[in-house]
């Protein structure tokens, strides 16, 4: 789990630096990423403009995120969203509505042992499951600098086609775009 976080941070850092130094390059986002607000995680992503004008822009956005419930499970999400970004006239703000399709991997703690003398836990057995997750999302962002904007995002998805039954997910994000 820790290595996943580190990997995402390592991945995000050069992208952020690259983005800051390259005018006109796609923005890089890094955010707090959570299922229902309490399974904390991190997500990095970018977005490419496909078409549009000053009032609307069609985007496509690849993202990679991970969130965890420390004593239970960890989810890794590889997601691709297509959306419509609408800048708010006269404000440094925008909204984006998008639909997404993602691959979701769940690694769940199945069992573990506890030592009756020391209380140490170990021998953690995990089980994996893979899902496809369609989603819809709404994002609100505002720029505080020419190259920096903050955003909050809410996505509603359903994990499908796994060994476990489908289940609704409410994915919340708060982060920065550079």
């Amino acid at each position, binding site marked *: 789990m820790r290595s996943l976080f580190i990997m995402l941070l390592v991945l995000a850092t050069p992208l952020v630096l690259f983005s800051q130094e390259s005018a006109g390059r796609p923005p890089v986002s890094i955010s707090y990423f959570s299922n229902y607000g*309490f399974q904390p995680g991190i997500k990095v992503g970018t977005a490419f403009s496909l078409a549009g004008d000053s009032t609307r822009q069609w985007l496509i956005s690849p993202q990679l995120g991970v969130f965890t419930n420390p004593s239970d499970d960890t989810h890794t999400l590889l997601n691709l969203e297509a959306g419509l970004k609408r800048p708010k006239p006269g404000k440094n703000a925008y909204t984006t509505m998008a639909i997404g399709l993602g691959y979701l991997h769940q690694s*769940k703690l199945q069992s*573990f042992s506890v030592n009756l003398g*020391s*209380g140490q836990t170990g021998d953690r057995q995990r089980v994996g499951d893979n899902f496809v997750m369609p989603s819809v999302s709404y994002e609100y962002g505002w720029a505080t600098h020419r190259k920096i904007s903050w955003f909050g995002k809410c996505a509603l998805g359903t994990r499908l086609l796994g060994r476990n*039954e489908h289940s609704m997910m409410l994915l919340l994000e708060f982060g920065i775009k550079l």
Partner: protein
Amino acid sequence: MSKKEVKHTRSMNRKEFIKTCSALGIGAWMFPSLLTGCSSEEDAFPEFEVNFAGKVLIVGAGAAGITAGYVLSQYGIDFEIIEAAPVYGGRVKEAVNFADFPIDLGAEWIHTDATILPVLINDPEVDASIDLINYSPESLYVWNNNKLKKRNFFTNFYGELKFKSTTWYSFFDNYMIPAVRNKLTLNSPVSHIDYSSDKVSITNTNNEVFEGDRLILTVPLTILKQNSINFNPPLPDRKINALNEIEMPDGIKVFMEFSERFYPDLTYDGGLSAILNETDGEKIYYDAAFGKDTNKNILGLFTVGKPASQYTDIATDAELIQYILNELDQMFDGKATPNYVKHVTQNWTNEPYIGGSYTHGDNSSASPVLKEPIDGKIYFAGETYAPEDYATVHGAAQSAFVAVEEILKG
């Protein structure tokens, strides 16, 4: 005895889940980790001050009674456990021959951190481990108004622990009973307790008399409420009033084997309101083989309180299983009866010397009175008297620690 500190992070369990949601409303569902997911530190392996050298009588060999004897043995204090039933364990009981894994006929879930187990063993020298299941269901349905509805997203908010290839019973049997077995008298229902003198004297229904300096009373609440034991002098009025404020309602567990699995991990009866409000009791059908090393399809029925009475009142076991199969057939499109193999029933309401499930409902006003010792001679332990988590095995065992500590303090 050395002291250690044990750290552990845990998920919200069912009881906490219900309590939290009831107390804080639906908003709490969004941030349960803020409420219960924090790390907790417990001061494990306590060292008690010892100013007592007499003999302690313990009435009842359930989780609290066994633990009390076990802890007293660790301090070298003389004790004797008197149990009414022909077996020890009380509401901790197992069926070893029903499936290819042992089944908890009584207490089953571990409603707290895994580290409670070494805390109860209270011996850092023990070199043994127990495998536990992360009991976090993936499929959760509700049965409401004769409709079965998927509510899988609720599984995000719920998780606790269970034993993987052992049981609560075997936990006590393996690690505590060896220390108390020689001090345990079975088939000895206590009918009279006399604490009018310096000593405490108890008499069983065979007119055998046991004498000690202190008494730890661990019988279920129902036994005291039914006046099954005669006290001399009588229990104080405030104690009797407190007893009358608390209920120990009906309870039953039924385990069924099916040739095919047709049920989710967890099915709540009564809709989401039943999950949020357990005032009248609780009823679930659950995959009892969840996380176990087995290919058997074992479905459990667990119900306490008002929902349990419809089952505990059924006269015969044959009628009971037919009633349950009919209900499951309604829920699961007639799949229960054709796949039924066998079942085992544990009716706790009809169990001699038990008479119900466990302490139920809000006992915040009565609980402090019930926990009070009488005349510095009679101490109380059991799930009713738990220092924190009443209605749990670990709560019962922890109450034994409290009683022993008070006695040893002198």
